[in-house]
């Protein structure tokens, strides 16, 4: 049947478009490990840059001075373990303990 003005074609196309609807049924997720392996073998590799390593923020510490302390072994051990657990260098460990004790910059306890 002829369609000189294209109306029939337009109807057919509209009907075809209407057939395509958003998905309602739950789709199964493909197994990524197997797909990635097959893709790798065919040269379809990851092109994304690895996540950038966050550099540890360095603090401005200014001039330094040496502090040598002779102390009982249990105190020594407590302090070393504390710094290890908190991942602090010794001087920052001392600073943290001073802060916890609320010792001011001039050396007085605040309360």
């Amino acid at each position, binding site marked *: 049947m002829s369609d000189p003005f294209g109306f029939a074609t337009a109807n057919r196309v509209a009907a075809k478009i209407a057939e395509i609807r958003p998905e309602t049924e739950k789709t199964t997720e493909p197994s990524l490990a197997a*797909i*990635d392996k097959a*893709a790798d073998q065919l040269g379809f590799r990851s092109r994304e840059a690895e996540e950038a390593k966050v550099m540890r923020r360095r603090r401005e510490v200014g001039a330094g001075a040496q502090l040598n302390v002779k102390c009982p072994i249990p105190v020594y051990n407590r302090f070393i373990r504390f710094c290890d657990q908190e991942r602090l260098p010794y001087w920052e460990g001392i600073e943290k303990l001073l802060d916890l004790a609320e010792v001011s910059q001039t050396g007085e306890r605040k309360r």
Partner: protein
Amino acid sequence: MDWKTGPSTSTMRVIGDVTESTVISVIQKEAKTRQFVIVDLEGTASRLVSRAIARASLVLIPLQGSAVDARQASRAVGLIREEEELIERKIPFRLVFTRTSAAIQSRIDRKIAASLQAASIPALATHLHERSAYKAMFVDKLALDELDPAAVNGLDAARENAMKLALELVSVAADVKEAA
């Protein structure tokens, strides 16, 4: 993504910054509410491509008339075949000739088309021609039907070509959905 920052009033929603780890979930989410979800991938062999293919209802492989493109397209077809076995379902695909001359079909285009036919690789009959209107869309950040015919050469022909391609595509999409 940049295109959507322009004045276009197209209702198409553009989602950028999709990564290998999010591509499948983004497709799943959009497919629940949208009639068409088009995943436009960079033309490189990447994990993003392979993951998107695994979740696709129809894969379109664009192909310019060159031997290099034909080889790249055949790699994509190889990947589709491999993934079909892994996920145990057919992944329908079509090759699409792009940037072809509207006036004449080159000897290379004909040779590639013949090679596809010989290998039973399905391709869309409509080609997307090389048209300045398609480039103007990205310069003016407008949809094809929003461009000014006075400012863009060959706009009518570009619209006709795009419409023909879209109709064929809708027809193929409906057919593969019916077959699924």
